[in-house]
């Protein structure tokens, strides 16, 4: 049998099998779609608003009430409770009813009026990293506004014109421009990075499952023939992987289109290039799963390997925690993982608007790795076919 013939026969056989096995079909169609939709939905708010914080106001002055109003008016914060004493506030923090407490000392207003520096305290729950960093930023801004107001009024009282006071207050100002993801929108940042991570797991699983199942069910000779040629083996492998690639590829393309154009986000780079890279990345993931199954001749081992390689790929990918801050060997492992490279390409195109030439080597590398792994599968599969005693391992 030649390559094309084997490809068609294998694709036809696989399609018939998928129709008989609803679970297998589900894992390359509606389950990925559901997983991707769930991830998008999780982050659909974009930015968390109105995180509950508490206030301990020991001052009870007009200024302390103004500060409380300022905090509550900040979109990211909600002053949900006022606490009479630190013990009650500590309990609320431990119960995570509030994520932070602003403590306003007695004599706060008087200190400011006398022209001395007043000190507020923000107790924040640093165990919840995102919550605490958003709250710190917003409280800093609210207090900064209040402080600037107090400084301007002190300066104008001393006879400085209001406009000059404003400039004199901060001779060198820092204009912070966050390039690319201007609003630090988590839908564009985390959902866009997590969806490929989940599809990566699903694709390697599908590759391992497709090939591993033939070995477990001792049907590998039925699939490849008793003594398949190199070309026929390669064709049969591609024919089998065609369906998961189509199913997961469609889900990936839909997710990408929805996250970008569907949500009114027009990325500065090439969305088409990202779509192509995502498809190649999924092909590579499928090849990784197929190679793990062909190499280990055990469906279970191949799936365990899938878990080991793909499940922590997001943690190693440099999105949440940067690559440059990882220990050398952990970084080396991260550089071996294809997700790390794919997600860099996606960031370059969707967020940074980098010219295509910066993303070209990554796509070429992913494609080359996929081709090499698929080629490596061929001798492994041929030798597995030749050894019926190695089939059926669980």
């Amino acid at each position, binding site marked *: 049998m030649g390559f094309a013939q084997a490809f068609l026969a294998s694709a036809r056989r696989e399609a018939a099998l998928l129709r008989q096995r609803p679970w297998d079909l589900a894992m390359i169609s509606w389950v990925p779609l559901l997983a991707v939709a769930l*991830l998008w*939905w*999780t*982050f*659909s*708010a974009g930015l968390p608003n109105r*995180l509950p914080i508490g206030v301990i106001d020991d001052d009870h002055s007009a200024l302390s009430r103004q500060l409380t109003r300022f905090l509550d008016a900040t979109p990211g914060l909600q002053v949900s409770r006022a606490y009479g004493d630190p013990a009650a506030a500590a309990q609320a*923090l431990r119960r*995570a009813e509030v*994520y932070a407490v602003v403590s306003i000392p007695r004599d706060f207003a008087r200190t400011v009026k006398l*022209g001395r*520096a*007043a*000190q507020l*305290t*923000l*107790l924040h729950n*640093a*165990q*919840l*990293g*995102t919550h*605490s960093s958003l709250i710190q930023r917003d409280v*800093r801004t609210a*207090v900064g506004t209040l402080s600037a107001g107090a*400084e301007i009024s002190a*300066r104008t009282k001393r006879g400085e014109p209001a406009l000059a006071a404003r*400039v*004199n*207050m*901060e*001779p*060198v*100002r*820092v204009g*912070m*421009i*966050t*390039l*690319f*993801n201007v609003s630090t929108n988590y839908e564009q940042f*985390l959902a866009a990075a*997590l969806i490929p991570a989940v599809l990566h*797991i699903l694709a390697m699983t599908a590759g391992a*499952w497709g090939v591993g199942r033939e070995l477990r069910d001792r049907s590998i000779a039925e699939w490849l023939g008793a003594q398949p040629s190199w070309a026929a083996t390669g064709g049969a492998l591609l024919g089998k992987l065609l369906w998961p690639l189509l199913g997961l590829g469609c889900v990936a393309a839909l997710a990408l289109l929805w996250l970008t154009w569907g949500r009114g986000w027009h990325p500065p780079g090439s969305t088409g290039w990202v779509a192509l890279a995502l498809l190649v990345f999924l092909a590579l993931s499928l090849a990784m799963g197929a190679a793990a199954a062909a190499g280990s001749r055990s469906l*279970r081992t191949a*799936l*365990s390997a899938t878990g*080991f390689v*793909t499940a922590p790929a997001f*943690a190693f990918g*440099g999105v*949440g*925690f*940067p690559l*440059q*801050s*990882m220990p050398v060997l952990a970084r080396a492992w*991260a550089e071996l993982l294809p997700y790390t490279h794919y997600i860099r390409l996606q960031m370059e195109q969707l967020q940074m608007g980098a010219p295509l030439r910066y993303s070209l080597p990554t796509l070429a590398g992913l494609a080359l790795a996929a081709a090499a792994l698929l080629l490596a599968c061929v001798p492994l599969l041929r030798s597995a076919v030749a050894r019926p005693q190695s089939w059926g391992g*669980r």
Partner: protein
Amino acid sequence: MPQCLRNLLRAWGDTLRAIGGDFGVLLILAAAPVLYGFFYPWPYAQQAVTRVPVAVVDYDHSSLSRQITRFAQASPRIDVRWVGGNEHDAQLALWRGEIEGYAVLPRDLKRDVLRGSPAVVTVQADGAYALLNKAVLYGFAEAAGTVSAGIEIKKLQARGQSAPQAMASRSPINVQMVALFNPTEGYGSYVVPAVALLIIQQTLLMGAAMLVGTWAETGRHRAGLSAWAGRLLGLCSVGYLSGLAYFGWIFLVQDFPRGGNPAGALVLLAFYVPAVCTLGALLGVWFGNRERALQVLLFTALPMAFVSGFSWPAEALPAPLQALRWLFPSTAGIQASLRLNQMGAPLGDVAGLLAVLLGLAVVSGLALAWKTRPALA
């Protein structure tokens, strides 16, 4: 000894033997949790993001712009790789990944400051990566802010204020940030204690479902209540050990915040492990296939982590998800574990979360009993 107790004890022993004799199940139930306990925190070993590579584009070439550059070079957050006179070069370096951000010191910076007209230093940081972005922005903001404060204080002193007076007038209201529960604000200390519960859940779910799925393939899953109680006890014994390994050993060895309420943590495991094991056994019966659990459960950890509320605030979830997320034991498990182990809450504070776990255990237990009832003779 009553018959049912004898059945239970026999099933318990048989299950432990079955786990020990099944290499695949043993690997997932016993080896994987320990392996992941060290593998997963590995990238976060240094905990903090420091010395992020940046550039300074200096169009001013004045003593002031050099001073800001020096302060930036001294910042532990950023590492000034080069100082140049061209924004375009900085942009290219950003795309190549050589730097993560840069500051532009405009022409006439010093002259504007001396004349008392507004001078602005712009900082451009890569917003695609949140932690890098934060380090670059704060690093430059602190450097420029320090220089700015120095100028302002000098000006105030020139107008007759004493040094402490000048300090107070330039910043009348300050806020001191006090980090609770994770005092170093380490990234690993924030992520890993929560993810630990997810690792415990996923390995237990897969191991239990794989073992029970193997039984289901041959019809061995059908058994009476006492036998099933013994089987679950067998699975829970292993699950409890992996829970103890995390709470008592892995947190300790890796120096994560821990030990807030050790007795409470033991009680939590007594609720969490049975809820997960029963659900795992139910999934195994439902799948009726040894390897299916791995296939179906591998990808679920990521979505479960982000609806559990430790990294993405639950307040920001759509309302239906805020309710649905309690169907995963990990949601209540992570919330309760953070409160007990890391925040040191008393057991009473997590009673509601334990009730959720109990509810999940009871419902999946009833479903399991129904699905595995012995066939009528």
